[in-house]
């Protein structure tokens, strides 16, 4: 138990500190690195909660895929050494106020609320179950969201290609367009 | 096929035909053939209607066809006509037919112009044949929307401003109408049961008084805006002066009648109790319309403005007569709608023709046109005389029926208002003769105008069509009057039950 608690606090400390660093760091590549830490720490939390598959996905897809993507795009669009200008104090103040107020309200609400757990036995999450559920059409089956997500991914892929592709001829010759 | 649905179908087919055609010259020919067919169809409809009535068919509406098209709200495509709608349909096809010929010379975006114009006509025809409030409203909107394009694209002068103003005011009005129609609908089953949009069904029940007090003014004002009710008439001068010829003709000739017809068919017919209670307010407003429009017309300098204000005056008379709530006055109102439709269409057609020759509409810049373009000038004089209510033309029949009817009202207030409205016939004479004197008579002042050419064949078709109907109604009004009288019976009996004179 203690070990669990220590692990939890360790992860949460990492998450909180690096979350804040991610959003405040003035060097963009560093921010990306901090984000990586946050995501990895979240994966640790999933492990702690006994969702190994999810943790693995988090590590490979999030920490591995998305962060790499982000870093690539940073390299494509920014100078790495460039430091951001500090945030305007007014903007920072109001944003911080809004965020803190939001966090405050949320936390108060969480503390107020009585969560009641069920007495049912926990289900072991293994790969077979995950695979079966994802492709099952019966009760507890997730075939519809699965298909939807597939199409979404396809669409996103196509969209990403189309959007990022270089645009056609930039200045179409006005003389050649047909005049009504 | 129901004969009434043909009235919507033919314009739609004509539009399709126009869309398919490549050659611009054929566009006009197709449009004129389509609308010519429509005119023949109207003649057939009038014939069928009159013979059905002679055969003893006493149903309130004839040629009824009813198809559900939106079940959950009980909206039907329901059509049917009585003498009033038949007359209005006849008017519409005449004006549209004449309008096509009046815009024969149009060069710019011809195809689109005729499509919009006929689309407008489709809306108007649909409006007159509908007996389902929702369908009616749909067609009403269909008629208003092309107006914006027609004025905004093919207009002259400050056309964007005018088009915007006109459309916004009419849209505002249709918002009122929509609220009114929905209000009527939701109160159409006071004792429970299926709520209805059908005019005939609603007319058989009594809408609760509380609802009537709210929805009568809404619908009446809503339609009144289109019928140029004071003080919501200001779209009319601007809109007319900017609109191209055929659009002015259609607008003043037909679209403004939608207001009068709607006010009659929806506001008065379905809610006579509230109409009876609240009429006095609107009678005052319409009396103001009548006199005020005429006075305003006296000092205008632009031909179209003069005519627009005269329309305000004449259309005010329509609403005035409807509010008198007796058979004769209402009969007069319907005849006035037809008569004014023909007259004002003729006016606008002629103004357009004169404008295309002189390139000005300011009367002070013209003079002595009678010598130069006698045909058009004589037609203008005829239009003017018809407008000032000379016997032998339709205007006289309409006005006299209205005045005679309105004056039979037992209430002294109504009779005094009638007398005030009668003064408009003198003022009308003043501005009509003033225009004729300045514009047509006298020596020809401007040498630029000495070599103008007189009317072309298509212009003659347009004007002669209109004039012959004006004269026909003026000389033999009995058949029209009796056709309308018969159809007014239901509402009259409803009112009489309410308030036995």
């Amino acid at each position: 138990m203690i070990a669990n608690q220590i692990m939890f606090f360790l992860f949460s400390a990492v998450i909180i500190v690096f979350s804040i660093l991610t959003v405040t760091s003035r060097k963009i590549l560093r921010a990306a690195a901090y984000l990586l830490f946050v995501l990895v720490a979240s994966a640790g939390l999933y492990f702690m909660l006994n969702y190994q598959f999810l943790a693995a996905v988090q590590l490979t897809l999030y920490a591995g895929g998305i962060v790499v993507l982000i870093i690539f795009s940073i390299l494509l669009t920014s100078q790495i050494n460039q430091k951001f200008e500090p945030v305007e104090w007014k903007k920072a103040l109001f944003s911080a106020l809004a965020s803190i107020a939001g966090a405050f309200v949320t936390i108060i609400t969480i503390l107020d609320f009585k969560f009641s757990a069920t007495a049912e036995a926990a289900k072991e999450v293994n790969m077979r179950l995950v695979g079966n559920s994802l492709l099952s059409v019966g009760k507890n089956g997730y075939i519809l969201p699965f298909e939807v997500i597939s199409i979404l991914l396809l669409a996103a892929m196509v969209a990403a290609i189309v959007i990022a592709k270089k645009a056609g001829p930039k200045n179409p010759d006005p003389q050649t367009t047909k005049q009504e | 096929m129901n004969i009434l649905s043909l009235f919507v179908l033919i314009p739609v087919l004509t539009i399709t035909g126009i869309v398919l055609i490549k050659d611009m010259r054929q566009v006009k020919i197709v449009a004129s053939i389509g609308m010519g067919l429509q005119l023949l169809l109207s003649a057939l409809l009038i014939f069928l209607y009159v013979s059905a009535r002679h055969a003893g068919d006493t149903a309130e509406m004839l040629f009824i066809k009813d198809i559900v098209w939106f079940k959950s709200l009980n909206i039907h495509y329901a059509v049917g006509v009585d003498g009033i709608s038949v007359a209005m349909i006849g008017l519409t096809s005449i004006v549209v037919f004449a309008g096509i010929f009046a815009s024969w010379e149009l060069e710019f975006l011809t195809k689109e112009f005729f499509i919009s114009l006929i689309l407008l006509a489709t809306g108007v025809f649909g409006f007159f044949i509908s007996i389902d409030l929702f369908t009616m409203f749909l067609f009403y909107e269909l008629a208003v929307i092309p107006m914006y394009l027609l004025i905004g694209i093919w207009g002259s002068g400050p056309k964007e401003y005018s088009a915007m103003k006109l459309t916004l005011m009419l849209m505002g009005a249709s918002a009122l109408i929509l609220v009114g129609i929905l209000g009527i609908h939701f109160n159409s089953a006071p004792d429970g049961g299926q709520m209805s949009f059908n005019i005939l069904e609603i007319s058989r029940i009594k809408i609760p008084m509380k609802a009537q007090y709210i929805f009568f003014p809404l619908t009446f004002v809503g339609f009144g805006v289109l019928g140029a009710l004071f003080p919501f008439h200001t779209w009319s001068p601007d809109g007319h002066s900017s609109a191209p010829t055929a659009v002015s003709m259609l607008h003043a000739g037909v679209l403004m009648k939608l207001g009068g017809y709607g006010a009659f068919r929806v506001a008065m017919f379905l809610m006579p109790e509230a109409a009876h209670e609240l009429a006095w307010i609107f009678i005052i407003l319409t009396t103001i319309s009548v006199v005020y429009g005429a006075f305003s017309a006296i000092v205008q300098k632009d031909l179209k403005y003069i005519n627009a204000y005269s329309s305000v005056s004449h259309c005010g008379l329509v609403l005035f007569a409807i509010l008198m709530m007796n058979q004769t006055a209402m009969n007069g109102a319907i005849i006035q709608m037809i008569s004014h439709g023909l007259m004002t269409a003729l006016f606008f057609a002629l103004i357009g023709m004169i404008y295309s020759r002189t390139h000005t509409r300011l009367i002070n810049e013209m003079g002595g046109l009678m010598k130069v373009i006698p045909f058009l000038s004589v037609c203008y004089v005829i239009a003017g005389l018809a407008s000032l209510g000379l016997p032998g033309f339709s205007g006289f029949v309409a006005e006299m029926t209205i005045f005679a009817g309105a004056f039979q009202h037992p209430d002294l207030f109504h009779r005094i208002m009638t007398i005030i409205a009668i003064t408009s016939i003198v003022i009308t004479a003043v501005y009509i003769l003033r225009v004729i004197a300045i514009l047509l008579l006298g020596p020809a002042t401007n040498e630029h105008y000495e070599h103008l050419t007189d009317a072309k064949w298509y212009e003659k078709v347009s004007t002669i069509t209109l004039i012959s109907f004006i004269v026909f109604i003026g000389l033999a009004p009995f058949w029209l009057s009796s056709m309308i009288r018969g159809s007014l019976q239901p509402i009259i009996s409803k009112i009489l039950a309410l308030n036995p004179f």
Partner: protein
Amino acid sequence: MNTGVPLIYFLILAAIMFFAGVYGFLTRRNLITILMSVELILNSVNINFVAYNRYLYPHKLEGFFFSLFVIAVAASEAAVAIAIIINIYRRFTTINVEDVDTMRY
């Protein structure tokens, strides 16, 4: 659950992370860093889902799958967003969010 950590700890953690993300979203000017803030927000939501699932409904897998789907959505969102960002960069030669205000009025 016998982890020894109560549920609300997870929730508070997620809330802080969420609002850190919000703060980032509001203050950052670089589109990519904004995207990162969005990732933070999504991640915090995931943590919530998973925690609820584990603590309150351990016999079901709704939260689990939802997180899975959120990760997939986040991935596609990132891909599209980055494509858009690169496109914007090409057109405006900047990815500063304040300079991209063509949609104004």
